[in-house]
């Protein structure tokens, strides 16, 4: 594993509330039912129903901070878009399979971040290290330590998700392994 991977993001906070569902709340349901898995097809629609044009205003390093139970429902497409835009995701909680999907898309994501939405507002300057769990709000001079991405999952995120991980595994080990 290389050491240059940017585990620490510095950018603006984009705050959402509790119970934001994946269909509708993150991407329109038609993106999910239409089985769009290519980032270029999804990013223009990220948060489209609540905040049209989000993808044009967001900048790499920006961090989405959500309340409890983020991303209910059929999953994955929205995390592909967040990863492609270089965003991070910090949630008070999310259904486990939503978390698993986010990791599988190579997204820098932390969950079980208690009261995270009380620590920031949209537009605040945040700095979050997904490898050690450090959460800093420079605008409000707040520091918190949240559960980081577990060590066992860092490689998947670093390689851009499951497909990237499998590709490297095959190149390094799988193809060379004895039958």
């Amino acid at each position, binding site marked *: 594993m290389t050491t240059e991977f940017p585990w620490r993001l510095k950018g603006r906070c984009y705050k959402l509330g509790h119970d934001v569902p994946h269909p509708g709340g993150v991407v329109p349901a038609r993106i999910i039912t239409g089985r769009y898995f290519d980032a270029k097809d999804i990013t223009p629609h990220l948060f489209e129903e609540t905040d049209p044009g989000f993808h044009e205003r967001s900048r790499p390093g920006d961090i989405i901070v959500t309340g409890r139970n983020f991303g209910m429902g059929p999953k994955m497409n929205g995390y592909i878009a967040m990863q492609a835009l270089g965003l991070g995701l910090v949630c008070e909680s999310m*259904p486990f399979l939503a978390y698993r999907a986010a990791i599988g898309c190579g997204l820098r994501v932390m969950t079980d971040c208690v009261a995270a939405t009380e620590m920031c507002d949209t537009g605040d300057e945040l700095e979050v290290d997904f490898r050690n769990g450090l959460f800093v709000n420079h605008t409000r001079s707040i520091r918190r330590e949240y559960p980081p991405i*577990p060590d066992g*999952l860092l490689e*998947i995120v670093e390689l851009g998700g499951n497909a990237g991980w*499998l590709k490297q595994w*095959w190149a390094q080990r799988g193809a060379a392994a004895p039958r």
Partner: protein
Amino acid sequence: MRLTAVEKVLAAKCGKSAVRPGEVVYPDPDFIMIHDGVVMGAKRELDALGINRLAAPDKVMMVTDHDVIYGSARAAERGAFNREAARAWGVKNFYDVGRGGHGHIFPMETGMLLPGMFYFDNDRHATNAGAIGAFGFRMGTEISRVLATGTNWVMVPRSVRLNINGRLKPGVHARDVGFHIATLIKQGVLPFDLDYRVLEYTGELDQFDLAARTALCSSPTEMRAYGVFLPPSEAILEHAQSKATRPFTPVYADADAQYDAQAEIDVAALEPQIALPGGVEHAVDISEIAGEPISHAFIGSCGSSMYQDMVEAARYLEGRRLAPNVRLFIAPGSEASTQRMAREGILATFLEAGAVILPAGCGPCNDAVVGPVHSGEASISTAANNNFGRFGPKDAKLYLGSPATVAASAVAGQITDPRTMVNA
């Protein structure tokens, strides 16, 4: 060691003395299951990466249960693709059309899935493994990594424990218990959040045979449990021993295991339940909804398709005819069950009542590929869930009940308490 059942099984499959909730581990599975609906996606994904062989083809079990008789030309193409995939991958445990049956049913009947085992599956209803005292974990599309590498990451789930007190009255079924539990969770009466939890049952479980235990796994899964577990009884162990295709070691939770939450319910006074349209967690006593007309009925699914479920349903159809406006579909869980039903005259009972026998598998419960409802129609079934649109149109009224309740209702043409049927 203070370990729950899932912690013990995962520790054993990781070569460790203990694992703890939240830990990321890579268990070595006893086998790997993939069903007919997702082989194509996994194969194409691996092909695109140049991955042309599996880590352990001998461990892979491919089943054909989601679209068994090909309701479309596209499905037939998929079947051909799956056959070629099995050949290319060298998968010998390939259960093609008319072989095996429902992947979450027949391995428990045949001794392939045994107490203490752990396996990976693409499908979330792998939780059925808990009926025999084992675990199957859903990987979704990440089954491709399991196929390629032999394992995948698992975050050890937390466990909750539910003690069952009392014995069910005649005519009340384990599915009724499941609907009731889901409803108590929804109402907040049971202090459980089942998201990514393992639900361990304890208490008066000897009253539940393998089919009933399978039924008890169903509704918690719909409430997002990642595993369900019943400690195997003497009867379950005898069944497993008589069918086992390899040695196995049953696993039981430690007496001082750590649970996220614990609760108990008494089922002695429970009435047959009906899950109202929209979810298993919307259950009411059958007396509240009895008399509601239905015209579509289905007995089967991963929750209710073992031989005993079929026998129970047949009791209410013996010597009777379905109501004139009702169509009833039966999908046994395994080819072996269908054959046994034929030998014992149970198939004749269904057919003479006017029911339609489907091949072993998921039946309409998979995306309504067979036996869908029409817009506005009312249906009663033993499907895994009755979420809007499960059988096609979203405005259909889908009720759930036990096999007995569905059979009685199909005869009456309206939701009917099976206990009111004479001679049953």
